[in-house]
């Protein structure tokens, strides 16, 4: 279970990118995180992943705090950024091997997982090519594979569908549902409200660093569409 307790983060000491954000993500949750540009989505995701520090509050996953036990938390999670900036000097397989080495996967495990996901996302035949020759979508697929091969208990994704072709988007949604059914929690940000509406069991909306709505997707939406809810919240001063 991921507990985000009153997390506050400011980049300039004046404006709060995250203002006392509290959220709980249960095992198996597929949690959508929406908000307009600059609302604080990426800041919160990076804080959970231990990429940036935050001033107050705490983030606890499986009993470990990201502040005091970052390595233990990072062993259990995977983070995918909004832009797949990865080592262009490596080949696809060298990057996946690097990640597998960090997570100490043995050769049999890594072979099985890489083969499974690289075949699914149709990049198995180009894994020996340098990443510098990959398109944006191929890099995105590689980052997704690197996040999946070590079987994290929590998957954090920032705009995961950007740059993916329709088939890959469909496959990623299938993977999401499949791993969530096995108890993995997924917390992802997106601007595609339909995806949240159809896919996520829970949703949170962030506005100017504050959570303005959160809960079960169906309870939040009720008889309306998520787009209507989002627009209503966005227009409130």
């Amino acid at each position: 279970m991921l507990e985000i307790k009153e997390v506050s983060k400011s980049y300039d000491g004046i404006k709060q990118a995250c203002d006392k954000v509290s959220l709980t993500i249960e095992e198996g949750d597929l949690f959508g995180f929406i908000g307009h540009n600059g609302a604080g989505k990426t800041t919160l995701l990076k804080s959970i992943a231990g990429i940036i520090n935050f001033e107050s509050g705490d983030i606890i996953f499986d009993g470990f705090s990201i502040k005091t036990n970052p390595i233990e938390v990072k062993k259990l999670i995977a983070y995918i950024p909004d832009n797949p900036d990865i080592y262009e000097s490596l080949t696809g397989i060298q990057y996946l091997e690097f990640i597998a080495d960090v997570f100490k996967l043995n050769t049999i495990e890594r072979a099985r997982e890489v083969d499974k996901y690289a075949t699914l996302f149709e990049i198995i035949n180009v894994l020996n090519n340098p990443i510098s020759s990959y398109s944006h979508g191929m890099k995105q697929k590689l980052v997704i594979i690197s996040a999946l091969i070590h079987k994290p208990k929590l998957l954090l994704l920032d705009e995961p569908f950007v740059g993916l072709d329709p088939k890959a988007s469909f496959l990623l949604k299938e993977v999401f549902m499949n791993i969530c059914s096995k108890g993995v929690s997924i917390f992802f940000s997106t601007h595609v409200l339909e995806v949240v509406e159809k896919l996520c069991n829970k949703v949170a909306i962030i506005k100017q660093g504050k959570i303005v709505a959160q809960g079960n997707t169906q309870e939040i939406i009720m008889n309306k569409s998520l787009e209507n809810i989002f627009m209503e919240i966005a227009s409130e001063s």
Partner: protein
Amino acid sequence: MYKKLTRLFFKENFSIKRLLGFDFRKSKTKAILIGVAIFYGIAVFFGTLGYLFFDLGKILKDLGQEQMLLSFLTVYSLGLSVVLILFRASGYLFYYKDYDNLAPLPIHPRTILLAKMTVMLVMLYVSSFIFTLPIVFSYFYWSGFNVLGILFYLIAFICIPLVPVIVMSFLSLLIAIATSKFRRSKIINIIIIFALFIGIFMVSFSVNDVETNPLTGQIDLFAGISNAYPPVRWFMNAIHQQSFVDLFYLLGSHVIAFTLFIILIQGLVQRTNQRGVRANIRKQSKPVRYQSKSVLLALVQKEFKKFFSSTLYAVNSGIGPVMLIVLSVASLFYRSQIEEILLQMVGANLDIEILILAFISFCIAMTYTTAISLSLEGKNFWILKSLPIKAETIVLSKIIFNLLMCVPIAIISILMFGISIGIGAIDQLILIVLVVVFAGVISTFDAIVNLHTPKFDFVNDAEVVKQSAGAFLGVFGGFTFIAINGFFYFLLSDTLSYTIITLLMIFLNFAMLAPLVYYVKVKSSHLFAKMKA
């Protein structure tokens, strides 16, 4: 539009925040410390070169040949233009990264080309001016300051790099096109550039004589260049004799050549940028082979891949080991000249063993990968921050990589120098241990430098490899450690034997290494956590 575009490119490339890698208004202590270190570097540079050229100017003045200083000025300026443009032309002109942003805008391609060219030239002129300032000062001091001379100098100074800009731009493009056909194009590129540098290095030393001032040995070479390349002569005559005719030749020939160049390359610049660097995706049937490694080994392997994927990184931070291996191999064949060459390089009259030690230490200090490799993570830094790897392990991998770059070659060099010069087995062993510990000091110190001066926001590697505070402090910090060892040797050289002093130097370097290692161990995690990915 040209002005707006140029201003934008300048802000993009040369803002203080960009050069330092942090906002100095937000971190005053860091700014002061870096300011002091930069001042130290500048003082060392101007102090050393200033003294040498001032001394040379005095000698030439006595001979009535102070105009020869101008040939130094021209040749150094030409050399710097060759090196800078060879590295930069491709990125500035033929394959610029913001082409996709600029091309759709309603701006004439010629305007973009002119703005890009302006930024590249200003970068060249500023570097060249700073580098040659000690020569300019020495010349005007010994030949007398006069307004017309300075005016002629400024005009001629602007002209002189233009021909190398033209030639090197084409050469840079040719190398990029030719090597892109090969699978290991980057490595071939690195070898070509190293071969070019070693060629220049060997030629310059092969014509030198040993004198009190090492620069005096270059007079004949530069006199030869000024005879073979008329613009050098025009430059000298224009300033020294204040000859309007020579200034006219220089200005006319260079402006015409450069204008033609700009007109002719417009189409080429369009084509190369449109085509871009072709991505060669080959579907492979070859099965993937998996191999598990320790995290540390995986990180070191990643460092090697990064090093050999960037020509600029490899050439700048790898020149030390290359110089070391070239000179030590050469020492086997040119035993008699090696002492003279080392005397010239070090610039002080010392025993051959100490000259070798000084040279090896210099080459190790020039291997400054740890001072920049963290910064070079750049946009990929999020990977390391999000993975369960301790900060100390990451820093250790970077230190190990730097040691692997310089230590094995330094050991081989000591053995080769040992054969060529006849250093005894015990002294060789002591030298090896000393050099290994010294390399540890430099690598660890550089790692600390980069922990304090990370610069992740850059457009191309040059901003980190050549222009960052990390690179500057890494190299000059290394020279400081050489100076500390040199001072220690100087203090004891009258009372103790060479062997005893070098043994004591091992302890001295251990004493410097221990607190540095402790600092890395204790502070890495904290400093890492503060870095923004």
